[in-house]
C-alpha cells in the first residue's frame, strides 16, 4: 500500500489494520465450508493489490506454505479441495436439471465405483424412492451403462452385504393400502428373535426377506410393533449392522435418516463422500419431503436446516440450496 507522506494518523493505522484483517478473514471464509463465496472473491481478491494478496498468503498457513526458494506456495491438497468446492454449485445444478431416473442411476453407479464407504447411497436410493421411481432408475441405468443395476451390484459388492444390496435395488414393492390382515406383528417377532439369538443378521434369510420384499406400509407397522414388543427401536437394535440399520431407517423413518446424513455433511471437517450428501439429499428431496426433513432436523438438532446451511455454505451453492428448500413455500 502506498503511504502518502504526512497524512497518516495513529487511528488510521489501527482502522486500516482491522479493515485489512477483516478482509483477509472474509477471504479465508470465502474459500472455506461448502462451496465458495464467489461475490467476496470477486470483490476482495479480484480488485486486490499485490501486497494484499501477499498478506493473504502469508496469513494463511493452511493454504500456503513457505517454499525453500523464498515464495509462499499453494498447498497442493488445498488446491484439490478448492477444485471440489468450486464444482459444488455446478454439480448441484447439473444434478437438479437431470431427469430423476438418470439422476438416481448416476448416483448408484458412482456409489458402486466409490466403494463400500459409499454403499449407503445405494441403500438410500433403493429404499427412499417409490417403486415406480426405482423402476425408472433401473431403466435409465440400462440406457446409460448397458448393464442392469443388479448385475453391477452383484459383481462389485462382496461379502454378506451383496445379498441385501442386490435384493434392495431389485425390489418392486407393493404400494397400495395394507390388506386388512397383515402379519406385521409376526414379522416383528421374527426379527426380534433373530436379534436376540445373536446370530449375524445380514446372513439371516428371514430378516433379508422381510426388509427387501415387504411393502413400506407394512414395514412401518413392523417398526411400530417391534417397539411395542421389545421396548426399543428396531434401528437402534441393529446398530451393530450398519447396512441393516440404514435400510430400516430409510424404509421406516426417512426424515430422521436424511436429517442425520445432512448433519454429518454440514460438519466442518466432513470428508469428501460425507460432504457430497448435502447436494445429493437437497436435490433429490426438494420435490418430495425437504420441508419435513427441515422440521425433523430442527427437532433433532435444535437448529433449522436452513440456518445451518446459511452458516456453513457459501455463495451460489448456498443460494441454490436454500432456493431449492424454499421452493415448496
Amino acid at each position, binding site marked *: 500500500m502506498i503511504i502518502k507522506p504526512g497524512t497518516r494518523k495513529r487511528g488510521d493505522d489501527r482502522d486500516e489494520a482491522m479493515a485489512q484483517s477483516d478482509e483477509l478473514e472474509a477471504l479465508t471464509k470465502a474459500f472455506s465450508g461448502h462451496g465458495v463465496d464467489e461475490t467476496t472473491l470477486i470483490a476482495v481478491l479480484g480488485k486486490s493489490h499485490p501486497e494484499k494478496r501477499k498478506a493473504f498468503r502469508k496469513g494463511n498457513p493452511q493454504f500456503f506454505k513457505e517454499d525453500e526458494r523464498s515464495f509462499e506456495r499453494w498447498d497442493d491438497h488445498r488446491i484439490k479441495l478448492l477444485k471440489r468446492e468450486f464444482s459444488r454449485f455446478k454439480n448441484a445444478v447439473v444434478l437438479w436439471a437431470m431427469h430423476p431416473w438418470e439422476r438416481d442411476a448416476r448416483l448408484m453407479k458412482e456409489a458402486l465405483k466409490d466403494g463400500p464407504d459409499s454403499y449407503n447411497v445405494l441403500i438410500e436410493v433403493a429404499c427412499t424412492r417409490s417403486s415406480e421411481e426405482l*423402476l425408472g432408475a*433401473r*431403466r435409465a441405468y*440400462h440406457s446409460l451403462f*448397458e*448393464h*442392469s443395476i*443388479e*448385475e453391477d451390484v*452383484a*459383481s462389485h459388492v462382496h461379502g454378506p452385504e*451383496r*445379498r441385501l444390496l*442386490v*435384493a434392495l435395488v*431389485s*425390489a*418392486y*414393492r*407393493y*404400494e*397400495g*393400502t395394507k*390388506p386388512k390382515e397383515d402379519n406385521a406383528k409376526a414379522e416383528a417377532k421374527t426379527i426380534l428373535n433373530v436379534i436376540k439369538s445373536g446370530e449375524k443378521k445380514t446372513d439371516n*434369510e428371514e430378516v433379508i*426377506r422381510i426388509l*427387501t*420384499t*415387504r*411393502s413400506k406400509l407394512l414395514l412401518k407397522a413392523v417398526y411400530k410393533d417391534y417397539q411395542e414388543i421389545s421396548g426399543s427401536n428396531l434401528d437402534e437394535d441393529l446398530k451393530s449392522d450398519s447396512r441393516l440399520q440404514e435400510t430400516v431407517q430409510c424404509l421406516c423413518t426417512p426424515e430422521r435418516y436424511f436429517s442425520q446424513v445432512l448433519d454429518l455433511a454440514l460438519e466442518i471437517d466432513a470428508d469428501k463422500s460425507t460432504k457430497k450428501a448435502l447436494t445429493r439429499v437437497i436435490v433429490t428431496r426438494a420435490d418430495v419431503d425437504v420441508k419435513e426433513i427441515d422440521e425433523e432436523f430442527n427437532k433433532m438438532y435444535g437448529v433449522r436446516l436452513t440456518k445451518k446451511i446459511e452458516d456453513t455454505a457459501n455463495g451460489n451453492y448456498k443460494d441454490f440450496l436454500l432456493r431449492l428448500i424454499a421452493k415448496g413455500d
Partner: protein
Amino acid sequence: MSTLTVPQPLPPVADDCEQLRKAFAGWGTNEKLIISILGHRNAAQRKLIRQTYAETYGEDLLKALDRELTNDFERLVVLWSLDPAERDAYLANEATKRWTSSNQVLMEIACTRSPQQLLMARQAYHARYKKSLEEDVAHHTTGDFRKLLVPLVSSYRYDGDEVNMTLAKAEAKILHEKISEKAYGHEDLIRILATRSKAQVNATLNHYKNEFGNDINKDLKTDPKDEFLTILRATVKCLTRPEKYFEKVLRLAINKRGTDEGALTRVVATRAEVDMKFISEEYQRRNSIPLDRAIVKDTTGDYEKMLLALIGHVEA
C-alpha cells in the same frame, strides 16, 4: 413365431361380442363358436373384446366363461383370454400356493419372458394380488430355492446384444469352479444366472463348453434326484434354448400317464403368440410325430379343439 391364425378380414369387435353372448345364451354353451372366435384373436384383439363385452353387457367376459365352461377347456380358454401380463401374474400366484406350488413355473415365467414382459407381470401382480411377486415368492420358498427364485423374479436384465468376451471367460471359469466344488447354491453361480443379460449368459455358457468340454447342464446332472440341480438345469435351458425347454415340458406332459393338462394348457396358452412354431418344430424333430397329432391322440373334446386352434392346426 406365433401359431395363431386370425381371420382376414377381421370381424368387427361388436360382432365378436354378440356372437360370444349368443354362445352363452340358453341351455348349454356353443363351445365351437367360442373356439372359433377367441381361438383366433391375438392379445390386443382379445383385450378389445373383453372391454367391449363389459361395456355392452355389463359383465366381465371372464366371469361368463367361468360360469359357462368347465374343466380343462375352461382353464385353457380363461388363461388364453387373460392379458399376457395378467396371465403370468395369475400363474405365478398359483405357483406360490401350497397345493399348486411350483418352483419350476416361477422360474419359467422369470426366465422365458423378456425383461419388459416380466416387469409388466410384476405390475399386474401388484394390481391383482395387492402384494409384490417377490414378497410372495420369498415367503413361499426357503434355502437355495429362495436364493435362486427371488433374484430371478426380481431381475430386470439388460436386453442388449452386447457381450463382453473377457467377462464371459472369467464367469465361465467361476461357474466351472463352483460346480466342481458342488457349491450349486453359491452366490456367484446364482448371481451370474440371475443378473447377467441373456446374451451375456449365452456367451458365458458357450465359452464354458469350449473351455471345459461339456455343456454346463451335463455337469449339473450329477444327481438326478436333486431338485435344486433340476431347477438349475431348467433355468439354463430357459435362458438359452427356451423352445427346447418347452418341447420337453410338452413331451413329459403328453407322455405322462393320463396327461398333465396343467402343463399342456400353460405352455400352449403362454407360447401360442410367442414361439409356438419353433416349439412345434422342435417337438416333431424330437418325437418324430407332429405336435397336433400327439395332442389329438392324447386329449379329447373341446379342450383338444381349442389346443389345436391355438397351435395353428388346420383341419384337413
